[in-house]
């Protein structure tokens, strides 16, 4: 008995050192990620500080860095996100309801839809830009480089996010609620509309906010769809002549591309605004998630 016990103890000495080293290595992994995030934020803030001011909100882009602002970019982003929201909420929720409540999973087409949505979630964003360019801007719809084309392109891009989180929210509604409703004589749709949907709204809203916050930061598809980097008016509609648009990340990209330091500062200021908006939206999403979690 004593021999194995001894060897066990001998082992545990070096094992403990390994354990400590391993723990430190893992904390280093986390620490390094945190360090990058914090450095990034501090760096952007320092760069942006000299130019942060209200003129960013009121002025238009200019080749003179002293007066350049990003009002059309802000309005452009608002318009695009508006179109995007109007598109993804009904379509995303309807798809989620279909897949959770109506689809018969033994049918091949329903399984195809599911696998397809998983795949779409991992298609690179720039490929959606190509889709938008080929179908919306030119080709069949020929909308031109307008707000509607940009908003729909981003909508298609983030639709899987809404569908996937919507499904989770709907799945979390206990069957007893649905069975109760059906037992009282409600039809399937009455059950979905009056019981399932109201109960899953917090989850769905969280998904929509996260989807929109992803859409706000997307740059590549908008470049391909043809967002303007230098624009002297705010969009006045979703299609037609007054619907050309810029967007916050596009304006940031345009300023980064300028070699002068003054424009880099403007880019940093744009990033501060972008990150600010994203923080508010993500905070809202987390608040909703925590407030309504585990209600059942």
């Amino acid at each position: 008995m004593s021999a194995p016990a001894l060897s066990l103890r001998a082992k545990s000495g070096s094992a403990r050192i390994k354990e400590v080293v391993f723990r430190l290595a893992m904390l280093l992994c986390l620490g390094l990620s945190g360090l990058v995030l914090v450095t990034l934020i501090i760096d952007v803030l320092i760069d942006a500080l000299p130019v942060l001011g209200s003129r960013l909100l009121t002025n238009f882009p200019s080749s003179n860095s002293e007066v350049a602002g990003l009002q059309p970019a802000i309005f452009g982003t608002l318009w695009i996100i508006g179109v995007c929201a109007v598109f993804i909420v009904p379509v995303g929720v309807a798809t989620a309801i279909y897949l959770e409540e109506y689809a018969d999973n033994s049918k091949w087409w329903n399984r195809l839809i599911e696998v397809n949505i998983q795949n779409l979630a991992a298609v690179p964003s720039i490929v959606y830009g190509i889709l938008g360019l080929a179908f919306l801007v030119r080709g069949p719809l020929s909308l031109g480089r307008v707000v509607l084309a940009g908003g729909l392109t981003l909508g298609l891009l983030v639709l899987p996010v809404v569908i996937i989180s919507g499904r989770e929210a709907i799945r979390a509604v206990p069957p007893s609620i649905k069975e109760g409703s059906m037992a009282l004589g409600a039809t399937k749709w009455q059950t979905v509309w009056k019981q399932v949907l109201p109960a899953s709204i917090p989850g769905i809203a969280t998904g929509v906010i996260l989807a929109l916050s992803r859409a706000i930061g997307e740059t590549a598809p908008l470049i391909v769809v043809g967002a303007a980097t230098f624009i002297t008016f705010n969009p006045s509609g979703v299609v037609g002549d007054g619907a050309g648009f810029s967007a916050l990340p596009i304006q940031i990209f345009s300023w980064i591309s300028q070699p002068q330091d003054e424009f880099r500062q403007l880019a940093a200021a744009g990033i501060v605004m972008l990150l600010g908006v994203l923080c508010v939206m993500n905070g809202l999403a987390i608040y909703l998630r925590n407030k309504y979690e585990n209600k059942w």
Partner: protein
Amino acid sequence: MASATPAAPATPATPRTPVLGVARRRRGEDAIRVLLFLAALLSILTTLGILFSLLRETIAFFGEVGLWDFVSGTEWSPLFADPQFGVLPLVTGTLLVTGLALIVAVPLGLGAAIYLAEYAKPRTRRVVKPFIELLAGVPTIVFGYFALTFFTPVILNGLLGMDVPTFNALSAGLIMGFMVLPTVASVSEDAMSAVPSSLREGAFGLGANKLQVSLRVVFPAALSGIVAAIVLGVSRAIGETMIVLVAAGQQPNLTADPRESVETITTFIAATAKGDIATGSIAYKTIFAVGMTLFLMTLVMNAISIRFVRRFRQVYE
């Protein structure tokens, strides 16, 4: 609801009603079912639209450029007077940046995942996990700005004393690693958390310590999920545009030297589409041919990833 509820109990009382449960067919209900199905169908249409738009112009492209020249050519200058259409420099550029991103994302992501799944107390987990997710929420243009204006001049050239040009693959790739990290970390953490605790308890019972349980029991048991996480990370890195566009320059360059400037598939698409190009021109078609290459690369990666995840689920759930 109010009007429907009283009607229902009355039904069984009438003797002539058909068997219970065979409800009257309702037009409205059917219409709603069709509408919902159409919404779901849109996702299939999206995929078909992507395939169709890519294929149409890609076929037109290969009417003008030989497939072999495209696949094996080593020079890429489609917009020059004497255009060359060898896609290899774009592919190697993409792979180089992806490789650099993995050097950061895989060890850091797995370290974070093991910590969160095996070591962290629930309270720590609740604080650390959103923090990593925060990294995933940063728009990639912001990472690009950071790579260009901070990481290259301050860290690479300043702190490490390297002498790299303003635009280089190294900075773009390493910073992209931090963008990919949350994907690797969260998917592999899910895989490790799904390993049944009976396996851990069995190993502890045989005298293994925490380190051995984590690395020799949980890690191998979750391996297919971890592979899926890495493959998913690769696919995100291949498809990323803005970091490379901003920080790696746009130089088609057949090189394995990370200090040089490179052009990736995605940056070519973005840089070319930015200019106003005519529909039907060779530049326009090139975007789609290159986009098709990108789409196929990520499709293969995603298919592999989904396979691995499924295999993993069959074992434990």
